[in-house]
């Protein structure tokens, strides 16, 4: 990575000569759609012995969406990183296939709705690319955004809880998780705030032991924000989202200030919150017990709990998986299409398929970080890194939960899990990353003209 600036200098003329990676992107996008179509066919062949009649429609729908998105990138972000869009299309496609497969279990169908939400997501992706020509404009709305985020987070308190968590807003047939949208607004706010105050946050304060502690008047607002968000989320008993926000906050704070003291404070605060919540909330306490002893309920003669069922599903998949449609993840009970969807991936696509999915997330995150580091403006750098970290932490919290690496918290796996708010938000995140990578990779403006 030390040679980054040198290679960048050498790359510009070559990129101009050979193009901007748009053809690579087109080929990869079409390949991603192809993988999804193969997935639909496999589900049909494995369950009915023939290709499903609606595979062509699903494939065509996904293909049209992908090509529209590609056209928008070509038109308005021609220097963008050519890997971002194909990864998003592939992850979304895998998600649609797995949900389509899980629809074959008894219960209501979710794939058509998910395709509708994906369409809205791609629509917003295109809208962001067309309307937001420079990400720095977002800085202006940072505080407004933070306020909206808080409102969004408080709103569900006034709606009935779903599965023990007050994170849903239900309006007739529509329901969404405002926390999903809030996380983007929050990342924008953190990026703007930290870009503006990073010197003060980094330099002031006194040294305790080995750590340079920040000054009280700087620390104050930060603590206030943390308390506000975590407080709201604890009230809603949504441990996953609070963990996500807090992790995002600590990572961005560290990236902005390079102060390890922030990490220490962060760890102390989260430890405090974890102990407090675990002590106060029986819901969370139960999750921790299940995490430590996932098979205890079996030994106690009460049958397998969801974590145990999830582990059974992963194990049954082994290294190569049963093949789509041939697993038994329905045994997990509820939330198989949302919180536990990764268990179906693990069971039916095996460790191989799971590694492929994890690799896609790793690539998406790495490309986000790459764009952030290549950018020049601190706000953009922090925002790109923050959004990439958001994806990484969310994947870790969800996948770690269903794999029994950490306590289970109800959250959605980016792009793959059922859930409209989640898909739409993740398309916006990718749109922002595409926008910023376009700026990061664009040759100097006068050459571009």
């Amino acid at each position, binding site marked *: 990575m030390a040679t980054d600036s040198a290679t960048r200098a050498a790359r510009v003329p070559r990129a101009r000569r050979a193009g901007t990676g748009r053809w690579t992107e087109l080929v990869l996008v079409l390949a991603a759609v192809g993988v999804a179509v193969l997935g639909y066919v496999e589900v049909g062949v494995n369950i009915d012995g023939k290709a499903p009649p609606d595979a062509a429609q699903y494939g065509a729908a996904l293909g049209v969406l992908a090509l529209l998105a590609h056209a928008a990138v070509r038109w308005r972000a021609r220097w963008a990183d050519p890997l971002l869009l194909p990864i998003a299309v592939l992850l979304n496609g895998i998600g649609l296939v797995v949900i389509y497969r899980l629809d074959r279990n008894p219960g209501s169908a979710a794939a058509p709705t998910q395709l509708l939400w994906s369409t809205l997501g791609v629509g917003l992706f295109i809208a962001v690319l067309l309307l937001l020509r420079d990400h720095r404009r977002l*800085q202006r709305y*940072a505080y407004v955004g933070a306020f909206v985020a808080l409102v969004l987070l408080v709103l569900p308190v006034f709606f009935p809880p779903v599965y023990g968590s007050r994170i849903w807003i239900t309006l007739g047939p529509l329901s969404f998780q405002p926390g999903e949208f809030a996380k983007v607004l929050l990342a924008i706010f953190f990026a*703007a705030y930290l*870009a*503006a*105050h*990073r*010197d003060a946050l*980094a*330099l002031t304060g006194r040294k305790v032991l080995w750590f340079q502690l920040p000054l009280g008047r700087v620390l104050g607002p930060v603590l206030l924000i943390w308390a506000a968000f975590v407080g709201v989320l604890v009230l809603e008993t949504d441990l996953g989202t609070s963990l996500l926000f807090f992790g995002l906050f600590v*990572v961005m704070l*560290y*990236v*902005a*200030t*390079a*102060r390890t003291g922030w990490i220490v404070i962060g760890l102390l605060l989260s430890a405090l919150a974890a102990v407090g919540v675990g002590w106060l909330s029986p819901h969370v306490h139960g999750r921790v017990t299940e995490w430590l002893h996932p*098979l205890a309920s*079996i030994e106690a003669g009460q*049958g*397998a709990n969801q974590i*145990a069922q999830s*582990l*059974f599903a*992963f*194990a*049954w998949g*082994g*290294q*190569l998986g*049963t*093949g789509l449609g*041939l697993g*038994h993840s329905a045994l997990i009970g509820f939330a198989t299409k949302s919180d536990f969807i990764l268990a179906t991936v*693990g069971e039916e696509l095996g*460790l191989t398929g*799971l*590694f492929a999915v*994890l690799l896609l*997330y790793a690539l998406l*995150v*790495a490309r986000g*970080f790459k764009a*952030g*580091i290549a950018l020049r403006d*601190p*706000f953009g*750098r922090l925002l790109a*890194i923050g959004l*990439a*970290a958001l994806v*990484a*932490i969310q*994947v*870790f919290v969800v*996948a*770690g939960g269903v*794999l*029994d*690496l950490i306590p289970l918290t109800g959250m959605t796996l980016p792009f793959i899990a059922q859930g409209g708010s989640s898909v739409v938000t993740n398309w916006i995140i990718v749109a922002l990353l595409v926008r910023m990578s376009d700026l990061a990779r664009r040759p100097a403006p006068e050459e571009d003209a």
Partner: protein
Amino acid sequence: MRTTRPEGTNGGPDGLPGISTTGRRAGTFCMLLIVALALQATRVQVFQKDELDHNAANQRATIQRYSQPRGNLLVAGQPVTGSAETGGRYAYQRTYTDGPLYAAVTGYSSQTYGNTQLEGVYDDVLSGTDPKLAGWAVWDAVTRQQQPGGDVVTTIDPAAQRAAVQGLGSQKGAVAAIEPATGRILALVSTPSYDPGSFAGTSAADQNAWKKLQDDPEQPMLNRALRQIYPPGSTFKVVTAAAALASGVVTDVDAPTDAPYPYVMPGTTTPLDNDTSACNRAGLSLDEAMTLSCNSVMGYLGVQTGLDRMTAMAQDFGFNDARLDVPVRAARSNFDTDMNQSQLALSSIGQYDTAATPLVMAMVAAGAANDGQVMSPQLVDKLTKADGTQVQLMHPALHHQAFGAGVARQLRQLMVDVVENGTGRNARIPGAEVGGKTGTAQHGVDNSGTPYAWFIAWARPAGSTAVPPVAVAVVVADSQATDVTGGGLAAPVARSVMQAVLNR
């Protein structure tokens, strides 16, 4: 909001690392998070796989087992089992065409209570998971192609099986019939029997049927032919005679022996009693002693032969073998290896601690029939794929060469005389040569229990010099009859089983 630092500055404030550095560190941290997930997934999906797959609360193995029709058990080319769609999570459940008739052969395959006997031993073949069934083992492992269940072709002769069941009727007992030249089991019956199809599923009715069978004092699910040992009584005298002949203690079956009367067992003051007064004289020949079933002579000859040679002969016939697999494992038949002479005398007439499964007593008759070559009993001819392609052929195997053809000829003569002139007359078959031995074994405290009635025999068409096509052992336990003797109760059953084979 205005940024306080000029754009494009790479270094951080106060000489601290800039965002390029901290961003890379944070990126590394995020990659480590994903690596941690990959490691945990590997742990669960590779290293803990077996443990989790076989967890009692994991239904997947059971679902897979019943996801397709199970392979069948075949008797004389016809399936005696089947599969029925349940419409439930376990897609197919076992059916039996004639459950009680073949229960001792098939065992059961229940979604609730597991698999036993042939259903258990060949479960991998029947459920299609045995790698032998795969066409391209490696490719099938990659694609996880599930093979249709294979079939198990049994050695059972349906006519002999039916004859045994009908012969035992409502009595409690067992029959084992063997083809002496090969060891193929022709009939395996235990009564009272049960219908293994009655609890094949998971419903409440299945559970009630199971519970009823478990609570039945008659123990219908006990496989008496393979899994229960009984004192063999006088049928064991065939073993004693074989040992005496093979060791040279007796060379001429018609010559008077030096057996005294009364015979007081060594080290005791107790004479060994006979059931019939015809035995109560000294100097009987071996042939007379067998025909009349004389305890005093056979006990004496057993002691003369000695513990070591008696033990060796018993073991050649399958006694003391804890791993007698047909391939369903038979219970261990016992002949004590450490006894004083009076105990040996009692053991030589099938009493004391001597106890045998009907299967092993059928091996005794089969050994005599097959010139001393005791073949390993086997219940299965071959395994095939669903389309009938042979997967594995079972070859006849020698269990032990117990004695030579000369001794075998003498032993057969003794057994023929038992049927022609002695206690086994009820086993006579017109147009056939039949050799056998009766047994009536006392048991219970002070012999208070109803005696076990035994009969072991072989038969071949009259004038034939070929190896007899059938050897059989019958035990009737706890009959309602007032006069319980092997010749009276067991011999007719043996006769009808042998007749069924001879009439093929």
